[in-house]
């Protein structure tokens, strides 16, 4: 038993352990956000932060609420898959407050966005050389984007 008569060093070690663990727990409490690990190894509030961004494009369902005449006409023609905001631009501000005017798109530039010829475009898409086809004339003089000819 004489070998264990001196235990003072063991107490020092134990104290060192306690201090170490307390230091770790304290630092962890300070540094790790409270919601870290609630769902997975990340801050749960990062989810809500990503959800909280504001919406810029209202979506065609929102447009339909007021402009159902145009939206209904569009469902049956060649532009059925084209969203309202594809041509008219982002309109969440207008959808939220109709007092905010929607900008009327420039017909020629908007039409050209899709209908200029390109070998990579699928054959089903109608393309046209704008200069040969219409010169400087606006597309809107003959064509109705809400009712394109089949």
């Amino acid at each position, binding site marked *: 038993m004489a070998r264990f008569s001196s235990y003072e060093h063991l107490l020092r070690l134990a104290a060192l352990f306690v201090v170490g663990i307390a230091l770790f727990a304290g630092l962890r409490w300070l540094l790790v956000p409270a919601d870290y690990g609630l769902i997975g190894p990340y*801050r749960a509030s990062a989810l809500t932060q990503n959800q909280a961004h504001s919406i810029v494009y209202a979506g065609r369902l929102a447009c339909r609420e007021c402009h159902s005449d145009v939206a209904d006409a569009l469902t049956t023609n060649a532009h059925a898959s084209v969203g309202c905001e594809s041509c008219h631009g982002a309109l969440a501000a207008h959808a939220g407050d109709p007092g905010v005017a929607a900008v009327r798109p420039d017909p020629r530039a908007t039409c050209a966005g899709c209908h200029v010829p390109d070998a990579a475009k699928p054959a089903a898409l109608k393309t046209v050389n704008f200069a040969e086809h219409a010169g400087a004339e606006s597309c809107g003089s003959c064509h109705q984007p809400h009712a394109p000819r089949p």
Partner: protein
Amino acid sequence: MPAPDRRTFLLQTGKLLVLTASAAAAWDYVMAGEPDQAPGYDAAAHWWAMVIDVERCIGCGLCVRACKTENHVSLEPDCFRTWVERYEIDPDDPDHPHVTSPNGGYDGFPPLTKDGVKTFFVPKLCNQCADAPCVQVCPVGATFQTPDGVVLVDKDYCLGCRYCVQACPYGCRYIDPETHTADKCTLCYHRISRGLKPACVEICPTGARSLGDLKDPNDPIHEFLRTHKVHVLKPQMATHPKTFYNGLDGAVR
């Protein structure tokens, strides 16, 4: 057994502390359970996927512009959450396609009239991998997969170390030049969690992009995946992407 010297003792103590800490952290994780999600949206009820119909893409660049507008993505070069590539494949050298993407297709593409080459557009975006390398390499847990299968970035927690940018086999991540943190496609998480479509899907004039919920048995995506030969990009990377391409040419990487 001789008494350990001070160095060995300190090393062993240190290891023990680290092990105790890991065990405590693991126990916390086990005991945490499933917390409540954002009100009105049950993330665990969805598993989002994207279907891209390459044969419908006309390279108009509307998706690229809509994405930048919706998500306030920097207009600096090489900052894209989605972009469009144009492939030109010479039949004499099909293994070396010529791929162009001027400013990501933001302003569309210069007209191509070359005959004799196979050419088509391929929209690219985050593949929302089920086993995402970018999530695995993040040293601080700033990038993660949500319960509905979207890989997101916690911009407040990101250090900007760029590991994830290097890890992504698809080049879908970039460093936001304003915040100097990693950024990527969120599948418009703020939109899909409110029942809207992502901006690129909403804006695509030909319906080349569509969002699907693999957990919803009534979603048309199941019918589409059953009846079409869809591919994912780089399947050999075993990232299990949830962006499916219909009509994809074998030359696309």
